[in-house]
């Protein structure tokens, strides 16, 4: 339901003319699209209700991320709403829930609340974090995420605050307190930055033990939603190719009537058809948090980024010289596919995780939906 609304909204806004306008202006983020995505609560989809979010699941967001890929939506939406927002909410909740956290020996508030003054300071900080999470869920504040798995931070320049890692801890740092160095990407809509910053007790949201598990979860979301965007991207590339080969004529016939052209596009469609169920299963089993579910996310990332790449290349090929031109949009999809493969774990990393699952867990058809067995 939200996915259909998102798809419609994004396709209305992300026209070729819009992309070209942003391209010329060197912009990724667009206030109007952001406002509309916020108005229908998509920005806070994965955020908890306490932060004003919809508390929906990865199953729901994966469809929205797929629509973003299809539309080639520029800007921070997927990382903000899909990864950074939930991370901030979880880290903030852990800090606020100091007493509970203390019971399991983790948590920022408990660790610091050894004096009344410190306790008050912690409470103020927690209120500020909760406030930021609520504004992030409402789309009023933009977040960026500097995940240790990614060398650079996307869309850091338009963010109000950046989530950063230090010794496993989650830190929340104002954008004004970090130094940004632009790292130009081949994808003109991917605004990457190197971030120089200094960790301090004031920026710390969680300790290392809790932080590491939150960073891990953020990584899984990042990889899953990158895969979702790739799948959307792959389908869009095929659709662009199909549209062109139906109208372009050579030897007196549409080139789409020739088998060489048909088979190229059909082969990509086969890849898409068999990446989709993996992606949806990975989303459905996200909360399993074990070797099986992580391998499934990796599987989705590998096959979806392959589909995106071969899709974009097939689209380029069937467009002929037009496909190689700046004027035709195909290159935008090709570049996004390349960029997404580089983010949230390279395919080589993800393949290794799959191999680990294969070599350490039981195999066979009865294990398609298995979970890890813990022997206590």
């Amino acid at each position, binding site marked *: 339901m939200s996915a259909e609304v998102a798809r419609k909204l994004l396709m209305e806004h992300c026209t070729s003319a819009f992309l070209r306008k942003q391209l010329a202006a060197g912009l990724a983020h667009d206030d109007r699209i952001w406002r509309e995505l916020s108005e229908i609560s998509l920005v806070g989809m994965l955020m908890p209700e306490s932060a004003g979010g919809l508390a929906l699941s990865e199953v729901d967001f994966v469809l929205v991320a797929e629509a973003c890929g299809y539309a080639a939506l520029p800007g921070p939406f997927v990382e903000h709403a899909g990864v950074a927002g939930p991370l901030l909410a979880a880290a903030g909740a852990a800090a606020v829930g100091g007493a509970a956290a203390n019971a399991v020996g983790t948590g920022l508030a408990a660790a610091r609340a050894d004096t009344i003054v410190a306790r008050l300071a912690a409470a103020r900080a927690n209120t500020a974090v909760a406030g930021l999470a609520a504004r992030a869920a409402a789309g009023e504040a933009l977040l960026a995420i500097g995940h240790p798995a990614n060398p650079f931070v996307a869309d850091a320049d338009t963010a109000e605050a950046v989530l950063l890692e230090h010794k496993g801890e989650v830190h929340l740092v104002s954008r004004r307190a970090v130094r940004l160095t632009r790292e130009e990407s081949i994808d003109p809509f991917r605004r990457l930055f190197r971030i120089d910053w200094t960790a301090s007790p004031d920026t710390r949201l969680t300790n290392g033990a809790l932080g590491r598990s939150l960073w891990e979860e953020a990584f899984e979301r990042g990889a899953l939603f990158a895969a979702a965007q790739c799948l959307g991207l792959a389908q869009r590339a095929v659709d662009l190719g199909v549209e062109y080969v*139906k109208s372009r004529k050579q030897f007196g016939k549409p080139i789409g009537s020739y088998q060489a052209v*048909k088979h190229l596009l059909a082969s990509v469609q086969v890849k898409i058809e*068999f990446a989709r169920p993996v992606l949806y299963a990975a989303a459905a089993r996200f909360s399993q948090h074990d070797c099986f579910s992580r391998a499934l996310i990796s599987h989705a990332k590998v096959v979806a980024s392959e589909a995106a790449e071969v899709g974009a290349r097939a689209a380029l090929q069937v467009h002929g010289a037009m496909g190689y031109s700046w004027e035709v949009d195909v290159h935008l999809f090709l570049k996004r596919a390349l960029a997404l493969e580089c983010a949230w774990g390279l395919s080589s990393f993800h393949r290794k995780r799959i191999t680990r699952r294969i070599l350490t867990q039981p195999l066979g058809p009865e294990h398609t939906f298995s979970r890890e067995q813990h022997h206590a």
Partner: protein
Amino acid sequence: MDLTYTAEQVAFRAEVRAWLKAHVPASALPPFDATREGFEAHRKWERTLAAGGWGMVTWPREYGGRGLDLIQWLIFEEEYYRAGAPGRVNQNGLFLLGPTLMEFGTPEQKARFLPAMARGDEIWAQAWSEPQAGSDLAAVRATAQRDGDDYLLNGHKIWCSRAAFADWAFGLFRSDPTSEGHKGLSLVLFPLDAPGVTVRPIARLDGKVGFAEVFLEGVRAPVAQRIGEEGQGWKLCMATAGFERGLLLRSPSRYQVAAAKLVELYQQQAERADPTLEAAVTRAWMDAESYALSIYATASRLIQGGKIGAESSTNKIFWSELDIALQRTALSILGARAELLPQAPDAGDVGTWLDDYLFSLAGPIYAGTNEIQRNIIAERMLGLPR
């Protein structure tokens, strides 16, 4: 899609597993295509299956089934392949003609043919292709000429799987002699021992009998053996082909079990094997899982009343290509021994990989070549012009 098996499904799996454990023959049966002996050994197995009520679990009870749904069918298949149970000699009947009869047959035809099929009493062959009608199946020339309450069948069918030893065949015939192409075709059943039928076995590239050609000279078949309306044959064939490519012919568990065996082989040979093969092993496993997840999604959709569409073509391409890659990887792991036949003195544990590899090469050809499937995807899914 619900990814957790229900208690009922778990119990069903246990029941299938226990039955197979008690009944699957300890040593492999001789192949069903090579000799009459192997064929009959497989017929006997079909009868054992049927006696246990496992002939075709998705069929209604009145036809020898258990009235189970497609998820249970997948579970049955998973256990079946996991147990290493014999190949289904009657797969043409059970997986292709069966569903077609179920959808288009009269009550009398269903009662006449389905229970005998489920029991293994009648083993079926497919008689569609002709020397001049392969990918262009609509070019069939064999005729079914009306003669009172009978058809007189004449013509030459080829590449008929199982026909060397099977009892019956389902054939595509031109019932309107003035027709061309897809029109005027009818699907007619005939016994392979009927007067006027000559069966000539054809050897496959491995030298074993794999299929046959069938010559029909004035073969008499009652009109009651025609499925569907006269002239509706093409529509029925396309429905059958949908079953063939789509869901039933190649269960995902076949490849999941093969992938697990491949991983085992790799682990056994890891010290000697080229380390770069790990990527191919991982890939084979991934593709088998992708196929399984896709089929579960399709089965869930069909249970909710959906119809199988062009995914029968994407499926066929996917399983046939993953099969070749999987089997070829096994040969690479075996290294220089990969070329040895099992009877070679130093073959060791080469197993059936070579056989399975050769058979996988037929995958992109039978059930409609992958080139034809890509045309279908391009034209029906993507809307490209003919």
